[in-house]
């Protein structure tokens, strides 16, 4: 599904000089839900942006379904749905208009968009809000629309970068439930979060990132050893943060 080989990405910071945000990551990820965790500044968002084709690697390759993130450009991006704290919705449009636009930009026929909406509207509880201006929706409702947006073209890869940030407990639970409903559809979901409970609720695999490198890649069950896996995460990440 997702193949990452020799991935490097650095930034030039006037104060710190060269900063290695992603430093030689190698990954082969099959379909499923993978929780991505790490300390602030560990390189998670950079990694996800690289996978989403928003940033370009200094070296290395990223491939999804045989398509390269740089070489195949828009065809590569057609394979994924990307949601982050900075992918908001236009306030003056309605969810119906916005989702129709997304379908159009994915090259879907209006009839196909309507068909997908028939499936997504009940899944995300959008029936009552479909024709309201997005500006009038609550943050949780808007995030559900956003999730529906990422799934509209039924992509094989879903990248969710902290999708519950800024949401209250109930809205966050709604989002987690919505993500749980997307599992087991043969796609890969990369779910980045700082909340261990969320990770445990949606994912069975865990990817820990520390200082731009893979600190752990495996199952949550192995790490938790039958209980809470947060202490193990802390134990793995602390040396990376301290150094």
């Amino acid at each position, binding site marked *: 599904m997702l193949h990452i080989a020799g991935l490097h990405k650095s*930034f*030039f910071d*006037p104060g710190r000089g060269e900063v290695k945000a992603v430093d030689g990551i190698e990954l082969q990820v099959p379909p499923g839900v993978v929780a991505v965790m790490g300390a602030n500044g560990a390189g998670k968002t950079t990694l996800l942006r690289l996978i*989403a*084709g*928003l*940033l*370009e690697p200094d070296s290395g390759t990223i491939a999804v379904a045989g398509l390269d993130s740089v070489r195949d*450009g*828009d*065809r*590569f*991006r*057609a394979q*994924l749905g*990307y949601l*982050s*704290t*900075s*992918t*908001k*919705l*236009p*306030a*003056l*449009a309605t969810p119906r*208009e916005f989702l129709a*636009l*997304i379908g*159009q*930009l*994915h*090259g879907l026929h209006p009839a196909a968009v309507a068909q997908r909406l028939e499936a997504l509207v009940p899944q995300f509880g959008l029936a009552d809000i479909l024709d309201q201006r997005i500006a009038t929706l609550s943050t949780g409702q808007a995030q559900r629309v956003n999730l529906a*947006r990422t799934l509209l*073209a039924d992509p094989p890869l879903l990248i969710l970068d902290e999708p519950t940030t800024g949401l209250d407990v109930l809205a966050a639970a709604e989002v987690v439930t919505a993500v749980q409903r997307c599992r087991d559809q043969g796609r890969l979901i990369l779910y980045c979060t700082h909340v261990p409970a969320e990770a445990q609720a949606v994912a069975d695999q865990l990817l820990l990132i520390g200082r731009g490198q893979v600190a752990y890649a495996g199952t949550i069950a192995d790490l938790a050893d039958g209980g809470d896996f947060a202490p193990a995460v802390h134990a793995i990440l602390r040396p990376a943060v301290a150094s």
Partner: protein
Amino acid sequence: MNPAVRAIFAKDMRELLRDRRALFVNLVLPVLLYPLLILFSVQVAQLSLAQPRPPPKIGVLATPQVLTALQAGATLPKPKRSARKQAAALPTDPTPVAQYQVVDLTGSSWHPQAVLASVDGPLTAPTRHNLSEFLRSHDLALAVVALDPVALQPAPLPLHPLPPQTTLVVLQDDGNARAPEIAPQVDAVLIGLRQTTLAHWLSASHLDPRLPEPVVVRHHSLATAAEAVRTQAAPMIPFLVLVLAVTAAMYPAIGLLAGEREAGTLETLLSLPIRRRDLVLGKLLVVLCAALVAVIANLLSLSGTLGLLAGQLAAVGTDSPLAGLVSVGAPALLLCLVLLLPVVVAISAAALALSGFAQSTKEAQTYLTPLILVVVFVAMVAVVPGLQPSLALDLLPIGGTLLALRQALQTPEMPWMHIAITTVVNLAVAAVLVGWTAQLFDTERGRYPGLVRAGWGRFARFRRGQSLPGGPEVLGVYALAVAGMVLGGGWLADAPAVVLTMAPLLLFVLLPAWLHSWLGAYPQAVVLGWRAPSGRDLLVALALLPVALGLSFGLGTLQEGWVDVGALQAAGEPVARLVAQLASAGGLPLQLLCLAVVPAICEETLCRGTLLSGLHKSLGPKWAIALSALLFALLHQSPLRLLPQAALGVLLGWLTLRSRSVWPAALVHAGHNALLVAAEVQGWLK
């Protein structure tokens, strides 16, 4: 239209129309602005008329005749500066109104005559201070003082001795705001007094009063007030259109990129499977539409308001100059819109690109304010009195077009050549800027300006040599070269032939190109084309030499069909003179060095090196060859040789891209020039 561009355009246009602030700025404000402004001005004028000010005071220390003349002159109509203004004047009120109030100072204790009589030249500071103190303490705007009060009685005019002369000194206090208002009237009254006195003297001497005026000048204005105003004001129309377009493009440009980035919706669009340039082009179309709608709404509102006002004035029988503005007419406005369309496209693209580098709307405003200032500053060229279109000014985007439009609107002849050249230049600039803007999101710098900061950070990294320059950057180098050639040509006009031929090329053509590559730490083999060519490429170049000469001579001969041959010969005279001077200074080797080798190296480095490589990066090979060829031709500042040189430029551009080196093109260029020099020396051209 590309479906993705259409979808983005529809989405952004819908959001713009739903945004009440945008609607207000781009539609409501332009429509309401002029009616409200004019209504406000009329109200202010009416309020001003309803509160008549007391006339300013003037002090008179002179004979009763002078006093009487000034008192009588107070109610005369104000003198007009020109016949046009007289024609444009509204009907005067039949009730005479005093323009000033006369204060007789004869009985006062003020006697400045002795001080004034002793002054020969400007007043000293203490004297000026004392005099102004008196005027200000008595609230006098000016004072008329007779130095030696002599009764101006009519008497026979003896030739010897002459009657005593009266000197009247006018002391004007320009610190009083109303002094300049009445000074012309006081002068007119005193000149009238002089003429009346002279007429009396002549009459008393039985001489014809017409004696001092052997020539009488009369002036008749043939144009109506409306026509005169139209001629004066019409050139402002293109300036107005441009300024309106720039200001109207700003709001949507800021909102559509910086605004979206600030609202967090841009990354959503960037993650979609569309070409990122389609995303930018869709937004550019929205900015362009918004600018054009605002301009059209502005002009319609202005025309409507002036038309209504002119109609109201006509109804009360006034020949209103406003009718002149109204009569500028739709064709002139249409011409302005059509010719300025590429400029508006270019400005919209630049505004969008600058907005794209900003992380917030506030930051975008900071970037765009200088753009507005630069555009308005360049556009001011069009309002410089007496400036005529020229080839050098045609190359100035915006300014050249406005100048050509000014001439088109002011004179019956259309400056077609200037219009054509400025349009080509504007189209080229628009193409480069649109190409540059379209690539905005192709780079991380454009997608995440917060990660790779633009601005001073970019300048600091300018010498890192991480990439190749693009179209706008190399056009900047070219603009520097043109400015140097135009200005330097004037400075070096009297220099010896060797300096005159080589210095501008080395200083203003080669040096900017080399400095640019050095400052940017760009690979000179790529950016300047200074790469060793293969032997095969040199052979191709030699084979192309006859083709180059054929193009040059063939198109030159063809051109003689529609170009004034006399002008062509006249244009060739300075070159022939240079050839002769170089021959006497150093013979054929110096001629070939100055006119063939150095021009070939310098011009090829700039045009086929810097320009072609940058344009190739932004526009692709075909447009890069075409545009660099045109700019190469324009660099020579000779309209009569434009076509042959442009054709030669295409050939040399193709050769350079083929060989990835400027040296084959330089070989053809030098060979071509050398044969032209030989032809001139041998007299073959005659």
